[in-house]
């Protein structure tokens, strides 16, 4: 009887206190979500809702610890070349810690680089099988990054990682797709200032490789060139040079060669290095010709080799 009375009183007090603190907690929750200190409550209808909520919530504050430990296991799977278990591990790890870039990035890297290369070079499989497995794992890696980017839309690192996957000529490049990811990267507010210029350059390089975007590429190239001398990288100036040739840009609209290249010696070195990328869809109009011209001019001093620049 007494116990019943006590329990009733306790419940009533808790309910009363609960009603009092409800508004307070809700406001604090919203403020924290706004400050990006905690994750927003998952929207209804999210397909991942059950999996994420169940696992993430159930482990309470232990998520970070469990994720760390699981990460160590994933490394062991990598060493054993057990790609299926590795993929499963990273599914769990990223469910536990969806806000940690490292896990998305590393998991994807194992898939789109390590696993895909493993299958590409696996002599035990037929060539068709090798090729398809390779592609499958590149796609898996990309899919993981995409999920990470979807859950962390402000995370420029993940968008950049995607852009690099699809622009990587060692993999199976899809330049239009890569360009799209570069645009997403640059659209993030969180890109640090000092990074932005470099990323714009990377985007430019990719754009030059897309046939249908050459004019856009040139416009971007001009903008970047005029923006800061930091952008006068050998690759950039060579791209502009080739694009201007390819699009037959008028003299008035061109950036003159003298401005692009400080001197002919450096121009030759730059163009030679640039020409080495010719298998990667970079514009090459007029590059070979220019190299020949410069070589003839500089033939007495051909033996003086400067260190190659990338």
């Amino acid at each position, binding site marked *: 009887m007494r*116990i019943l009375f*006590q*329990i009733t*009183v*306790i*419940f009533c*007090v*808790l*309910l009363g*206190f*609960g*009603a009092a*603190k*409800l508004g*307070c*907690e*809700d406001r*604090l*929750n919203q*403020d*924290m979500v706004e*400050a990006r*200190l*905690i994750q927003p*409550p*998952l929207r*209804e209808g999210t397909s991942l809702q059950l999996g994420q909520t169940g696992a993430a*919530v*159930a482990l*309470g*504050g*232990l*998520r*970070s*610890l*469990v*994720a*760390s430990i699981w*990460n*160590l296991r994933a*490394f062991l799977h*990598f060493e054993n070349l057990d790609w299926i278990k590795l993929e499963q591990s990273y599914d769990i790890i990223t469910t536990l*810690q969806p*806000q*940690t*870039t*490292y896990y998305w*990035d*590393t998991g994807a*890297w194992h898939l789109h*680089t390590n696993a895909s290369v493993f299958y590409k070079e696996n002599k035990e499989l037929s060539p068709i099988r090798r090729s398809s497995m390779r592609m499958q794992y590149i796609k898996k890696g990309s899919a993981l990054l995409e999920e990470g980017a979807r859950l962390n839309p402000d995370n420029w*690192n993940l968008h*950049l*990682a995607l852009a*690099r*996957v699809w622009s990587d000529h060692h993999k199976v490049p899809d330049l239009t797709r890569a360009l799209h990811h570069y645009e997403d990267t640059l659209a993030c507010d969180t890109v*640090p*200032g*000092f*990074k932005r210029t470099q990323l714009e350059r990377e985007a430019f390089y990719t754009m030059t490789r897309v046939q249908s975007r050459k004019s856009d590429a040139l416009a971007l190239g001009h903008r970047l060139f005029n923006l800061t001398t930091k952008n006068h990288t050998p690759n950039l100036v060579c791209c502009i040079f080739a694009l201007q040739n390819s699009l037959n840009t008028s003299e008035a609209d061109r950036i003159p060669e003298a401005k692009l290249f400080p001197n002919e010696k450096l121009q030759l070195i730059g163009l030679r290095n640039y020409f080495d990328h010719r298998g990667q869809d970079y514009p090459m109009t007029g590059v070979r010709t220019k190299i020949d011209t410069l070589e003839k001019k500089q033939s007495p001093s051909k033996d003086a080799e400067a260190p190659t620049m990338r």
Partner: protein
Amino acid sequence: MRRNGFFSPARIMVIAGHTFTQLVRMKVFYFLVIFVALMLAASYFEMPWSRTAEDSAEQELTILKSTAMGAMTMFSVLFAIAATALLIPKDLEDRTLYTILSKPVPRLDYLLGKLGGVLLLVAISLLLMDSLLSVILHFRTDSLLAHEMAVGKAQGWPQPDMDARAESISQQGVTWDLQAGIAAIFFKAMIMASIALLISTFSSSTLFTIVIAVVIYFIGHYTADARNYWLHSQKDGVSKEVKFLTQGVALIFPDFQLFNIIDSTIEGKKIAPGIFSRLATLTLFYSGIYSVLAWFTFRKKEF
């Protein structure tokens, strides 16, 4: 010699100090040794870095913090629950409770003293673990910073970029925000200890208290969803029972998701002082309410 007010801070401190000694002499600090070993192992373990990671230095620090603070959370919460759960049943079983309550000791002082002793131990343990983490983190941050600056210099980065990079790495190192995260771990433990105290005034079984407290801990992580569902959801086609249940959960259980700022501090995010102080105040209110309810049950308990 009449010093028997309803509430005597001095007497509470005596009981708290005694509880602290009791728990320490239970060799609980052996866990800290395991923690130290874990920490040192984690800090030296070389993680594989994806070649596409732009901020691998920051990520390495994040992983280090993540392991350490995860262990600290686990220790604090489990210890707070278990230690509090065993104190009163142990006193009852050993009859030492009679010798204490037969002295002029108000029951509130007794309860607060027990709670205080547990929290003192949790606080000191966290401080020790925090010191170790800070030292390791500091050295790691410095070495990573030096490495990145050297790379930057070799690549000819301009000073503002170098500064920005240094700032970004330092933000992942030992900061006041990280300490706020550790304080949040303490807050969680404090609330759980108060809940365990309340349950143990009803139940004389340590195991039962621990199990119920752990269940409440888990339910507390759903409170935010329940509240959100109640206050902000538009759905109408839901049964009355479900509605009632979610309302009940939102009102009765503490919202532990608010303490997920721990994860944010691991990520290196900044915590505004306003948010931190509100969280602290909320913790005090929770602990206060649970302590008062524990006293309400305990004051008329017969032995």
